[in-house]
C-alpha cells in the first residue's frame, strides 16, 4: 500500500499541534478581532454585575444606613446629593446601556466567529483537501472506502477547524476570563476568593478525566451503531437472499444482537454521564455554600458589602464555574481535532506521484505511436504486476489484450496516460518518454472507456463534453453519432438536456457505454484505451456497442481489453498476458494456429460443428 497508509509515518501529537498552530496563524488577524470583542464583552459583563450590586447596596444604604457605598472594582462613586430614585434611574439606565452594548457586541462576536469558521477556515480547508484529492493516485482511492474519503473532507475538516475556534480561541478566552474573575473577586475579598475557588482544581481534573474516559466509549458506541446500520443495509440489499433461503429468523437474531450490543454498551455511558454531571453540579454548590457561610460571616461583620460584595460574588462564581466546565469541552475538542488533523494532513501531505516535469515537452497533438520498452511496474514494495513488457504499436493500430483477472492488463494500460509511472523501463509516445511530455497534453490526447463507465449526475450533453466543457453542440452531436448514441439520446424526453441519475432517466448498460465512448471521442484522441468496455452489458445487447466501437477505433491507436472472440478478432494484433508478462502475441489467425492459452479460451467460446450445421452456416471457426 502507499505511504498514505503506513502507520509508521504517523506524525506525533506535538508535530500535529505545531501544524495546527500554523493553521491558526494564517487567520491571526481574524482570531485577534474575535478575541478583542470577547475582552470588551468580559469587562462589560463584570461592569453590569457590579452595577446591580451597587444598586442593592445603595438601596440598603438608604434604608438600613449601612456603610456608604463604594464600588471597589469599577471605581465608581455615586453622586451623594441626588435624590435616591434618580440614582436608581441612573443605575438602571447604565445597566440597560451596558446590556445593549453587550447584546450588540455579542451579535458581532457570533457573526465574526462564524465568518472566520464557515466562510474562511472550512471553505479553505475543504477546498484544499478536495483539490489535493483530485490529484492523488488511484491507489489511494482503492485503499480507502468512499465513505472514509468523504468523511475526511466533511467531518475531519470540521474537527480540524475546531482546533482554531473551539480550542485556541476558547482557551484564550477562558484564560483571560478566569484571570479577570479571580482578580476582580480578589479585589473584593482575597480570602473569600481563595475559599470559594478551593474546589476548582478538583473540578478541572474531574472534567478532563471524564472527557478522556468517555471519548473512547462514545467512539465505540458509534462503531456499534454503524455495525447495526450496516446489518440493516445489507439485509435490505440482500432481501432476496434472506428470503430465498428462508433465513429471516437468523437475520433477526443477528440484528437483535447488534441492537442489543448498542443498548448494553450505552448503559455504561449512562452511568458515567449520570455520575459526572451531578458531581460537577455538587462541586459548584459547595462553592456556593462556602460563599454563603464564609461570605455571610464577612457581610455580617461588615467586612464585605452585601450587593457589590456577596451578590456580585455569587454572580461571578456562577460565571466562573461556567467557564471551568468548558475545560471538558476543550479537552474533548483537542482530542477530536487531533484525530481529524491526522486524517486531513495525511491527504494534504500525500505526495502527488505523477506530475509534469518542469522542462516538459509540449506536444498538443500526438500521432499515437506507443512503445513499451522493458517496462515493469510494482506497487511500492509489492510483487511486480507488470514485468518487462516490450511492445511497439504504430499510429492507428489496434491491440487487444487478453488475460485473467490480475494478469496486469489494466495496469499496463494505466501506464500510458501516466496514472502510474513504470518502476523500470520506459513508455514512449511518438518516441518521447511519457515522463518527458507535458502531462495534460498526454492525457488530452488519450480517450478512455472503462468497464463500467462512471457518468456524472448532469445533463447528457455535459457528460459527453466532460473532457472539453466548451465544446459546441455540433461537436457533441458529432461525437454522439460516432458512438451510435445520437438516436437514443434524441428519443429521450429532454434529449441532450436529459439529466442523468434522476429516477426515471436510468439508461441501460449499453447506452451508458455508448455515452462513455462519445465522451472519449469528443476529444479526437490519437490514442484510445478501452478497458473491457462490454463487461457490464448483457450478451444479448452487446452487439449494440460494437458499431460504436468500430467507428471510434478507426484511425486511432487503440488498446482494448477483451474476453470475447468477437471483440478480440477486431484487433490488428493480440497480446495474451499472464502474471504480468506477455505470454503470446500475434494476429487472431496466428494465435489460432499455435497451442496455448489463446486457443484454449477460443475453444470455450467457439461453436460446435453440429450447431453450425443446424444453423446452416459453413466454414466458421470450429472447435477441434
Amino acid at each position, binding site marked *: 500500500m502507499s505511504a498514505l497508509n503506513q502507520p509508521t509515518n504517523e506524525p506525533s501529537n506535538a508535530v500535529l499541534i505545531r501544524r495546527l498552530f500554523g493553521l491558526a496563524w494564517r487567520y491571526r488577524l481574524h482570531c485577534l478581532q474575535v478575541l478583542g470583542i470577547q475582552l470588551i464583552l468580559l469587562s462589560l459583563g463584570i461592569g453590569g454585575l457590579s452595577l446591580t450590586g451597587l444598586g*442593592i447596596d445603595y438601596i440598603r444604604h438608604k434604608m438600613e444606613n449601612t456603610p456608604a457605598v463604594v464600588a471597589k472594582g469599577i471605581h465608581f462613586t455615586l453622586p451623594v446629593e441626588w435624590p435616591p430614585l434618580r440614582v436608581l434611574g441612573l443605575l438602571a439606565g447604565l445597566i440597560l446601556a451596558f446590556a445593549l452594548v453587550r447584546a450588540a457586541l455579542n451579535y458581532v462576536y457570533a457573526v465574526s466567529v462564524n465568518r472566520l469558521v464557515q466562510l474562511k477556515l472550512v471553505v479553505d480547508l475543504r477546498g484544499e483537501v478536495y483539490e489535493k484529492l483530485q490529484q492523488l493516485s488511484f491507489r489511494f482511492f482503492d485503499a480507502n472506502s468512499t465513505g472514509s474519503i468523504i468523511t475526511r473532507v466533511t467531518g475531519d475538516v470540521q474537527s480540524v477547524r475546531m482546533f482554531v475556534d473551539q480550542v485556541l480561541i476558547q482557551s484564550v478566552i477562558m484564560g483571560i476570563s478566569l484571570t479577570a474573575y479571580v482578580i476582580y473577586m480578589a479585589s473584593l475579598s482575597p480570602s473569600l476568593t481563595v475559599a470559594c475557588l478551593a474546589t476548582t482544581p478538583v473540578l478541572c481534573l474531574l472534567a478532563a478525566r471524564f472527557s478522556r474516559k468517555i471519548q473512547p466509549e462514545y467512539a465505540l458506541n458509534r462503531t456499534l451503531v454503524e455495525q447495526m446500520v450496516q446489518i440493516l443495509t445489507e439485509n435490505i440489499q440482500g432481501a432476496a437472499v434472506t428470503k*430465498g433461503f428462508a433465513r429471516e429468523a437468523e437475520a433477526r437474531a443477528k440484528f437483535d444482537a447488534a441492537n442489543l450490543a448498542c*443498548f448494553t454498551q450505552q448503559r455504561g455511558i449512562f452511568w458515567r454521564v449520570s*455520575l459526572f454531571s451531578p458531581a460537577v453540579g455538587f462541586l459548584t454548590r459547595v462553592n456556593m455554600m462556602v460563599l454563603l457561610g464564609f461570605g455571610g460571616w464577612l457581610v455580617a461583620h461588615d467586612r464585605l458589602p452585601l450587593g457589590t460584595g456577596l451578590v456580585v460574588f455569587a454572580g461571578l462564581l456562577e460565571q466562573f464555574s461556567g467557564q471551568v466546565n468548558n475545560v471538558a469541552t476543550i479537552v474533548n475538542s483537542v482530542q477530536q481535532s487531533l484525530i481529524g488533523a491526522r486524517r486531513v494532513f495525511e491527504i494534504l501531505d500525500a505526495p502527488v506521484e505523477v506530475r509534469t516535469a518542469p522542462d516538459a515537452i509540449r506536444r498538443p497533438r500526438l500521432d499515437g505511436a506507443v512503445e513499451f520498452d522493458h517496462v515493469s511496474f510494482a506497487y511500492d514494495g509489492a510483487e511486480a504486476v507488470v514485468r518487462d513488457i516490450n511492445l511497439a504499436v504504430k499510429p492507428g493500430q489496434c491491440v487487444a489484450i487478453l488475460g*485473467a483477472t490480475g494478469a496486469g492488463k489494466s495496469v499496463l494500460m494505466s501506464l500510458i496516460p501516466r496514472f502510474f509511472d513504470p518502476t523500470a523501463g520506459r513508455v514512449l509516445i511518438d518516441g518521447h518518454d511519457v515522463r518527458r511530455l507535458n502531462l495534460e497534453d498526454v492525457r488530452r490526447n488519450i480517450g478512455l472507456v472503462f468497464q463500467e463507465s462512471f457518468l456524472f449526475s448532469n445533463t447528457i450533453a455535459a457528460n459527453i463534453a466532460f473532457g472539453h466543457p466548451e465544446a459546441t453542440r455540433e461537436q457533441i452531436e458529432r461525437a454522439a453519432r460516432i458512438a451510435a448514441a445520437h438516436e437514443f439520446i434524441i428519443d429521450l424526453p429532454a434529449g441532450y438536456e436529459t439529466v442523468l441519475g434522476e429516477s426515471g432517466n436510468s439508461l441501460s448498460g449499453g447506452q451508458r457505454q455508448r455515452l462513455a465512448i462519445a465522451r472519449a471521442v469528443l476529444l479526437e484522441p490519437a490514442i484510445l484505451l478501452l478497458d473491457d468496455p462490454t463487461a457490464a452489458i448483457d450478451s444479448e445487447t452487446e452487439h449494440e456497442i460494437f458499431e460504436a466501437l468500430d467507428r471510434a477505433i478507426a484511425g486511432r491507436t487503440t488498446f482494448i481489453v477483451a474476453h470475447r472472440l468477437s471483440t478480440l478478432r477486431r484487433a490488428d494484433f493480440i497480446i495474451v498476458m499472464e502474471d504480468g508478462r506477455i505470454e503470446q502475441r500475434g494476429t487472431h489467425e496466428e494465435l489460432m494456429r499455435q497451442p496455448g492459452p489463446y486457443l484454449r479460451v477460443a475453444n470455450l467460446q467457439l461453436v460446435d460443428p453440429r450447431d453450425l450445421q443446424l444453423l446452416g452456416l459453413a466454414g466458421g471457426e470450429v472447435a477441434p
Partner: protein
Amino acid sequence: MKQSLPRPRVGVLVQQAREEEDEEQFKPLEWGLIRRLFTYTAPIKGKVTTLAVMTLIRSAQLPVLVWVMTLIINGPITSRDFRGIGLGVLGYGLLAVSIDVLFHFRQRFALEIGETVVNGLRTEIFAKLQLQPMSFFHRLKIGRVIGRVTSDVESVRVGIQDVLFVSVIQFGSMVFSAAVMLYQDLVLFLVVLALAPVLWALNRHFRVKLSLYSRASQESFSRVTATLAESVNGIRVTQGFVRQETNAGLFRNLLADHARYNIALARTSAILTPLLELNSQFFVALLLMVGGWRVFHGDMAMGSLITFFLLANQFFAPIAIIGNQYNQALIAMAGAERVFRLIDAVPDWTDDPAATELPRVLGQGVRMEFRNLSFGYVPGRPVLHEVNFTALPGQTVALVGHTGSGKSSIINLAAKFYLPTSGEVFVDGREIRTITSHSLHRQMGMVQQQNILFSGTVLDNIRFSRPEATDAEVQAAAASLDCLDLFEALPEGLLTQVGEKGAGLSVGQRQLICFTRALLADPRIVILDEATSSIDAMTEARLQHALRQLLAGRTSFVVAHRLSTIRHADLVLVLDQGRIIERGTHAELLARRGQYAALYRQFVQVDDTA
C-alpha cells in the same frame, strides 16, 4: 489500512438524507403517538414510575435551593446571626446533596428509558421488514429505512428522555419560583409575569426560523457530500479527462453556497442569544427601578428585592428551555410518525393461513408447472402473458430473451417472491399459494445476478444458507464444486473477509461463493440469475464445471447469458415481451431457425459487423 473512525450521519448517510427532503420536519403533538411510544417502556415500568415521582420532586428542588439561599442572605446574614448562618449553610448543603443524588437517578433512568424505546423501535422495525414480501423491497429506498432507524429514532429518543421530563421540571421550577415571588411581592411579580410572554414569543419566532435555516444548510451540505461522493467514484474519469481544476472550482462554489446558508443560520442564532440576555438585563434594570421605588416607599422589604434578583432567573430560564423542548417534541412527533408508518406498513400479501408445508423429498427435484400465468408488478401493466410450461423433476430450464422480456419475473414467481395476477404455479402438483413460503424457500437455492454477499468471512457467507452446517460440511460443499482450493488460496482462506476493499474477491470468486452457499442448502430447486459481467475465460471454465455440479439432480431455472449453460438446458424458453415465443432444446431451436437461431447467430457470427 488504518481503521477510519466511524462518524454517523456524515458521508453516505447525508447523501441519502437528500431523499427525505419531501418529508415533514415537524408534527403537532398527538396523544395517541405519545401513548404508543410509552408502551415500549413496558420492560422497565418500575423505572418509569420512579422517574415520574423523581421528576415532580426535582421540579421543586431547584427553586427551593435558590429560595433557601435568599433566606440565608435576608435572614441570618443581614441580621448577623452567626448560628443562623451556620445552620442555613448546613441546610443548604443537605439540600444540595439530595438534589445531586436525585439528579443522578433522574438522568440515568431517563437515558435508560430513552434507550429502551429506541432499542424496541429498532427491533420492531427490523422484524416487520422481514415480514414484507419482495415487492416491498423493490420499491424501498434504502436511505429512508436508514433514516428511520437512525435520525428518526434518535429524535424520538430525545423526545422520550428529555422533552417530557425536562419540560415538567422546568415548568415546575417556573411555577414554584412564581409562587415564591408572588408570596414576596405582587406588583413586582406582575412585572415579571408581563415579560414572560415576550420572552416566549421571541424564542418561538427565532426557533422556527432557526429550524428552517438549519434545514436549508443541511440540504446544501448534502449537495456538497453528493458531489464529493461522485468525485471520489469518478476519479478515474476526472483524471483521465484532465478535469481536476474545473472540478475544484465547481466544488469551491458549492462550498461557498453552503457557507452562505451557515452564515444565515449563525446570524439568526446570533440575534436570539443576545436578545434573551438583553431581556434579563432589562428585567434587572426594571427591578432596580420599580423594586427600589417600592422599597423606598416601604411597600416592599429589602429582602424581597434580593429574592427577586436571584429567583427571577429560575423563572425566566425555563421559558427558553421549554421553548426549545417544545421544538424537539414536534420533531420527535414527526420522527415517531414516520417510524410507525414503516412499522405499520401492511404487506402486499402474506401466506394463506391455510397454507401447509411442502414435504421434502430427498434427492429429487420438484416438478413445477406454470399454467395460464399472467403477471404484472403494477396493476394494468402486465409483464407476463399466458405463460405455460412444465419443468420436470431434475430438469434445467434456461430463460433467454432481451432485457425486459420477463425472464426475472418468471424467476420471481417460481420463488414465490410474487404471486401471479392470474393463472397458477404448481409445485409437485400443489398450487403455490397453498404452500408456506418458508417451506418452499428452505428447499430452494438462489444465486442472484449481483452475487450478493454479506459482510463477514467467506465461511459465514457460505453458511448463511444453513447456519447449523459444520466446517467439514462447508468444505465438502466447496470441494464438490471443485473450488475449495480457490477459497483456501485467498489471503486468509475461508476466513477471509468478503466485504473489505482490497480483499480482492473477483466477480468469479464471488459467484463461486454464491454457488457453494446455494449447494450447502441441498436444495430441490435452484434459481440462478447468471451474472452478465464478463468473467475471464479461465474462471469461466471453472464456473461451468461448478454449475453442472450445482444443477445436477435438481430442478433449476437459469437466466442464462452463457452459451454453455443454454446448451446444456433441458428446456430453453425464448421470451419476448412477456410471452414464450419459442421453446425446445438448444438443438431443436437452432434447427427451427427462428428467433433463437437469429439471436444465436448474432452472438457467434463474429464477422457480421467487422
